[in-house]
């Protein structure tokens, strides 16, 4: 099998950080791929397919993370996950005062 390892750096651009909703979107996207997906900050490396694990990064706005995919579809997976970060997970910066 063609095992590839592909990684890229991403920046958490959302004002609220990598909170529950983007973590959910990220894990759902990661689960679409056969490759193993990992996220790493300076202190730890976690499974990108688990919301629970992603939340333990407590990544605030501005945090730099490395996303790494290992497997047959690593390149496509990194492209898809990278674009989630690039688009700030489509978070609208509308403050909700309700």
């Amino acid at each position, binding site marked *: 099998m063609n095992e590839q390892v592909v990684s890229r750096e991403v920046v958490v651009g959302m*004002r*609220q*950080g*990598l*909170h*529950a*909703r983007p*973590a*959910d*979107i990220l*894990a*759902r996207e990661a689960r679409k791929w056969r490759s193993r997906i990992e996220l790493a900050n300076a202190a730890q490396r976690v499974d990108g397919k*688990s*919301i*629970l*694990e992603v*939340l*333990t*990064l*407590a*990544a*605030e*706005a501005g945090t730099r993370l490395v996303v790494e995919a290992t497997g047959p579809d690593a390149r496509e997976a990194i492209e898809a996950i990278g674009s989630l970060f690039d688009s700030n997970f489509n978070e609208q910066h509308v*403050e*909700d*005062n*309700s």
Partner: protein
Amino acid sequence: MKFSDFVAVDAIRSNIDADTKEGVIREMAQSLVDAGSVAAGDLESIVKAIMKREDLGSTGIGRGVAVPHTKHPSVRRLVGTVAVSHDGVDFESLDGEPVQLFFLLVSPPDRPGDHLRALENISRQLRDESFCKQLKSAKGPLEIQHLLEEADSHGVAS
């Protein structure tokens, strides 16, 4: 951040009756009112805000755990509580499993960092499967409180 930094111990419930998402959220928000952590007059608005957040995507994070939450201008600091449903409730979680263990959080709108650190603490502690199981099978609120205290004392301070 530790559980004791945000969990209102008087609002912990070990056996909630609600069998719907909104029912669980309402029962937990009411327990925060009863514990004096939020004002009775803010109950409806808090429940509505948490339901609105759930509409954006479920806060069921897997392993039978959900973290319903909202920002709300009525609180000055992060407040939260813990509840267990023995039967489990459908929360549209990522893994499709019913949820038995709930952490409800209400945070001031201007403190996103505290909210993230509370989520970090909850998810880090719940990676320990036996801790998760013990919470779900706790006999009463006091046992849940003791389990949280024990987790706090073992955890790395952050």
